[in-house]
């Protein structure tokens, strides 16, 4: 139904271009994406404005009460703060760990490069539940990490490594590391090696060359990768749900709890929208800050 509204917009002849082409090729994709992607997003907004009901998942009338309740609740603010902080920490750590790997892959000419590339790529393609399950094996009280620490005599009793923010942060770092490596790799490979060579031949040390030439030129990759990881980690559901317990509960876990366990759809929708708006503001500020740093680039 929506496709019939959308298709003519594309059909309108663009001035100066005589050939419009076979629009039918685009129609199925537009039906899919407008009918089952764009319109559904509008229904999050309408849902968040509906009244609550005790007999159904939502009521008849419309209200702003869910936003007011959520924004006045210190518990929600605490969870929101924790989610953002965790996202920021995961972003910083993945950048610090991902940069050396991307740099190595970009410059590697060994015959193992292809295998190393699989090392980076495969965690991305293995399901989230599987990867988080692996971290449960490692981080639980009787898990691999605690056993190893105790065997080495570093601790006397098991450390609490999961069911808190720490466990979620460790696992999210692993889960999203490839998302920072891949954009950086693309960026680093696109930088002409002549630039670094020129800097070296002018007598700069390798470190200085990296800091003054390579690093500034890779800022776009850093920007893209960090935004990706930040958005993915603050919206992650599986990992905090499996590893977080109540101490590591994030906004996504709370929203799903509202929807699935408590059947409070309008309130859950309002929470989801608050989270999305906060995320947009943070990313917007970050883009502004990094744009200033990148403006000094040639």
């Amino acid at each position, binding site marked *: 139904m929506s496709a019939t509204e959308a298709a003519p917009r594309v059909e309108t002849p*663009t001035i100066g271009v005589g050939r*419009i082409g076979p629009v039918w090729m*685009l129609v199925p994709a537009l039906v899919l994406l407008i009918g089952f992607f764009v319109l559904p997003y509008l229904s999050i907004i309408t849902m968040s404005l509906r009244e609550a009901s005790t007999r159904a998942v939502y009521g008849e009338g419309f209200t702003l009460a869910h936003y007011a309740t959520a924004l006045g609740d210190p518990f929600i603010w605490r969870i929101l703060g924790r989610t953002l902080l965790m996202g920021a920490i995961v972003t910083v750590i993945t950048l610090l760990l991902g940069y050396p790997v991307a740099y*190595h892959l970009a410059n590697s000419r060994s015959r193992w490069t292809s295998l190393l590339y699989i090392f980076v*790529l495969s965690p991305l393609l*293995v*399901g989230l539940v599987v990867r988080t399950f692996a971290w449960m094996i490692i981080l639980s009280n009787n898990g691999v990490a605690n056993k190893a620490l105790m065997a080495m005599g570093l601790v006397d009793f098991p450390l609490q490594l999961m069911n808190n923010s720490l466990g979620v942060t460790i696992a999210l770092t692993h889960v999203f590391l490839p998302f920072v490596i891949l954009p950086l790799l693309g960026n680093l490979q696109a930088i002409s090696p002549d630039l670094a*060579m020129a800097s070296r031949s002018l007598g700069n040390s390798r470190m200085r060359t990296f800091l003054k030439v390579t690093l500034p030129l890779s800022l776009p990759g850093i920007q893209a990768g960090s935004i990706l990881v930040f958005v993915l980690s603050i919206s992650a559901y599986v990992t905090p749900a499996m590893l977080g317990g109540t101490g590591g509960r994030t906004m996504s876990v709370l*929203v799903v709890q509202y929807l699935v366990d408590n059947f409070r759809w309008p309130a859950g929708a309002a929470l989801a929208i608050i989270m999305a708006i906060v995320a947009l503001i943070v990313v917007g500020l970050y883009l502004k800050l990094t744009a200033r740093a990148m403006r000094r680039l040639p």
Partner: protein
Amino acid sequence: MRGAGGVEKTIWDRLFLVLVAAIYIFLMFPIVLVVLLSFNSGEFLAFPLEGFSLRWFEALFSNTRFLEATSYSLRIAAISMIVNGVIGTLAAIYVARHAGNNRDRIRLVMTSPLLVPEILTAIALLFYFYEIGIGTDYSIGIQIGHIVVTFPYVFLNVSSALFNFDRSQEEAARSLGAGGWMTFRRVTLPAIKPGIITGCLFAFVISFDIFNISLLLKSLGRNTLPLELFDYLRFNFDPTAAAIASLSIFLTFAAILIIDRTVGLRSLRF
């Protein structure tokens, strides 16, 4: 590694290599661990390994719930792959060849499911399906959700194959008298086939793995494999779970191998 002409490796080079090696190990360790433990004969998900055994895979294959979940996941993934293989390829060709001034705008719409968190899309579809009366009683809801989320993978991979394709070959075919369909079937399609294969395999693997969409849109009592594993782990923590996880890891690596053999991994587009 970067020293042109055999420059001596300094201590910093070696330290850097050790650091990078540690990060590669960090990336692979959890996955290797799960596979190792799924073949371990011991009762618990812990070291030391006691011996090789297939008992946990036997336990898995005698569990009807897991088998049903696996076949349900395979079915959803296969349908997502086929549907997107057709409509994603068509859309990519249209955008590459005919979109004109609207190209960037249409491209943005086509990739948008990748640009927003999957959990938000899942929530949006849940509300929407109730509003338009489909609800979650049938598999159609979860199936549409999977198709929407995996669509950009086919679109992007085919787009990138089209971008790298030299159009003069098409013109040559046309000038030799081939019609539009003939040119497409004999020239364009073979040239972009690697992109289509990669995109389709990607769509399949991602659909097989995704969780949030399935969690919110599943109909009662019908679990996909990741959901079944998630539910299982709530009450159990044993090597059967590792066997399921291994199975899904093998599937992923099979796909990676096929992509690597046919088109090369570096052509992947996210």
